[in-house]
């Protein structure tokens, strides 16, 4: 697996971590480590989530009722906390997805204006 050097990694945009976590959990429950790995792998190593941000975010989402946590046993034979998307979490994900597309669209129009608009 090609490792991206640290200086080429992208900073996560403010407020997108929650959305990424919700999205990652769409395919089934995972533990915190797994979520971090999934984000890294699916972004081709461009995004790396700091544990210092990931875990507080997981707890924040759990507290809001978008995630539900259950204790299980991990591949390392250790107690691990598995997070699962709740119905409220799914609704929140779709809301965030919409907001994200609007944001991308809006920023795109500013950065790459259509010809004739300048």
């Amino acid at each position: 697996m090609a490792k991206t050097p640290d200086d080429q990694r992208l900073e996560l945009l403010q407020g997108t971590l929650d959305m990424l976590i919700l999205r990652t959990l769409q395919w089934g429950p995972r533990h915190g480590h797994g979520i971090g790995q999934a984000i890294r792998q699916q972004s081709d190593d461009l995004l790396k989530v700091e544990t210092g941000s990931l875990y507080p975010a997981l707890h924040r989402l759990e507290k809001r009722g978008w995630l539900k946590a259950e204790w299980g046993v991990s591949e390392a034979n250790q107690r691990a906390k598995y997070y699962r998307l709740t119905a409220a979490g799914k609704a929140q994900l779709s809301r965030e997805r919409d907001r994200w597309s609007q944001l991308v669209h809006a920023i795109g129009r500013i950065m790459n204006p259509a010809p004739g608009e300048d």
Partner: protein
Amino acid sequence: MKPDDRELDDEIRGHLALEIKERIDRGEDPEAARLAALREFGYLPAVRESMRQVWYSRWIDALHDQVSDVRYALRSLARNPLFALTVVGVLTVGIALNAAVFTMLKSMALTPIAGVDGSARLVVIFGETGGGRPVRLSYTDYLHLRDNDRAFASLFGSAPARAHVGRGRGARPIWTELVTGNYFDALDVRAQLGRALRPSDEAAQASEPVVVIGDRLWRQDLGADPHVVGKPIVINNTLLTVVGVAEPAFHGTTVVYDVEAFIPVTAAPRLGFTFGTQQTTAAGILGDSLATVFYPQGYLRPGTSMATARAQAQALWAPLAAERTTPQDVQRLRVVPFWQTPGGAPSYILPTLTVLSSMGLLVLLIACANVAGLVLVRGISRRGEIAVRLALGASRTRIVRLLLVENLVLAVPGIVLGTLAARAGLPVLVEYAQWLAAPERLFFNVELDGLVIGFAVLIACGSAIVSGFVPALRSSRVDLVTTINEDASPRGASRGRLRSALVVAQVAVSLLLLVGAGLTTRSVEAARRADTGFDPTGVVSIAIDVRQNGYDEARGRAFHRMLLDQMRADVALDSVTLAAHAPLQMQDTRVYRIEIDGYAPRHDEDLAFMANMVGTDYFRTLRIPMRAGRAFDDRDDADGASVAIVNETFATRYLGGPNMAVDRRLRLGTGEWRTIVGVAADLKYARINESPRPYFYLPLQQAYQPGVVVHARVHSDIPGDVNAAAALERAVEHARARIAALDADLPVLYARTMADQIRGAFIFLDLAATMLFIFGVTGMVLAGLGTYGLVSYAVQQSTHEIGIRIALGASSRSVVVRFLLRGLALGLTGAALGLAAAVGVSGLLRAVLFGVSTTDAGAFSTALAIVLTGVAVATLVPAWRAARTSPLQALRQQ
């Protein structure tokens, strides 16, 4: 589900295990993998903390911080127990004194009537004569007001009256209140047994009179008999039916007196009570508009102001005023709050309590300055610790908070101990007052409640913060480099200034307290030395009331005659006499309206004076000098010419002086004219601090009184104090035996030396002075300790400087003088401020002072001397010690 700390740890551990496994799977060395995983994870406690913070809100965290602050404070205080104990001690004293005074003030100001919440809101109506003398209203006037009034929810009346419960030798004097039927309803006081009085009891004059008794009477005299309701009880030789027992907390509306029975006012004539005038028959007094009975009082209706009530009272009075033309009659009505009831205890106790409260706060101020000094000194010696904390990144706010928490931690035991001390001390004070007043029963409504504890908490935390804040700010402003290197001079200019300010403040406030204590102490001395106008030493007083055994006037006179004859035959007694009233009993006796032949009163002048009915030898027995004319003698009996004796003030004010007074005439109301045969010197009649007032005497033979005091003077040629006291005791016992021999069933109301009897007159001054003295001494001791601590610390800090001076050739004497001057300069500044303040505020003490000017030079100079001596000692001792250390040692010590 809120995760606990263990779950957070588990989750982190799980993550690390996965990361390590993954790295090992990738081929990393297990140890390297473990370290890399840890490194990648970041600062573990911080991550865990931010996970926790998702679940626990900020204030819980803040609380957590506080708890750790408190824990830290406890640990650091435990390392310095002497400091902790001193601060706790100082705060305890300050809080105890303040809690005690506040308890009294609260009771008097908020609940003057025990057992009646909000009784301070009662409003009282009284009449005023043309001369401005407050008078009670008659029963008929009360009825007029009650039936027409709209301002009061319910207007009731109550007249305190002495009575006797029981018959014969077992009878006991008690205080009763003659009340209207709506009394209990209006006050919302219930009966714990049976029923309270009701309006029908007031109307039912024909049937057997009823009484509601107090808890104390029920328990002490009736053995708490559960079937007491419906049983008869003898009061003033009259059978009354007990209909109920009042709530235990209720002691009547006569503040400070313990009222033990409540009798419908309409039954008063049957029990032998008379009001005001002499002309009306006992039965007629309730219909007599001149018979003054009580001050009507009650709660105002909701929404009614005092002004409205006043206007209404005037309007109701207008038609009645038209018929009352003489200046002695009530000319107008006054409507005042309860504490201003004329002659009521609150009207003279409240001002004193106000003085006491201010002194209490001064003591607290000194305590604060004291604690501030201690905290400051401790802060200086903790600079090292504080500097390290600052260097490690603690914010100043955090350090100040920590130091404040330490002070608050110290306040807690201060609150507990202070409140406990107040609780233990108040009963002692009350007992002292009751002992002084014995055998009169007093009741003080002092109870420590939530309000007092709240007050204690408030002042404790307030003083902890006040005394901790400035020093904490100072301590937190530490120069890191110099402190950690520990080579700079510790005497920062600003810190020195704060210390000086504290010394000046303590000296000033303690001077203020000492002046207060000095003034009151001198006032009590003055009262003790005061010329009462008579000589109580060597005199015994025995009180009897022949009505107690049902004597009519003829039998009463005969009994008095026999008793006098027998006692006069006793060789141990020099002279014996009878009188209707004993002097200095703290209460004005009834006043008589008189007319003076040849004196035309101004249109608003009100000639009404107190009088005494006395037997022959009265003036000789009490050693009251005659200024002119003669004393009463055997000529002045029932068949003799009507005569009177007036006092010097009377003669001077109305008759042109003692020598002009003899042979002039006066008469009571519209009675027969009496010739003035003599002028007696003035006495203190009711209180030690009264101003001279007109007074007159009638011969007992010409104005029979069933209740009399026998005064007997023991022969003065008995040598030695011990024998004199024994002779007095013997005289008291002989008198008792003689009365028992004449009539075994006649109770002796009291029999004691006259010195004991007039002791009550000094109670109030004594109590106030005792408390002020305690406050003054406490304040001074606190201030002395505080000043000593601060000054000696300053000197100790200057050891280095002293070493240099001595090394450079200064004598140790010059060093001591130098420090002494520095200390005295501070002391004098403080004393000057204190003196200025004392002159300014000592006027407030006027209410409790007697015979001393509020700027009494003696009190001021004594206080000044004590304070300056204190400062000098506090400076000298440490300076002397410092000067004696060798220069080398002093220089090394840093």
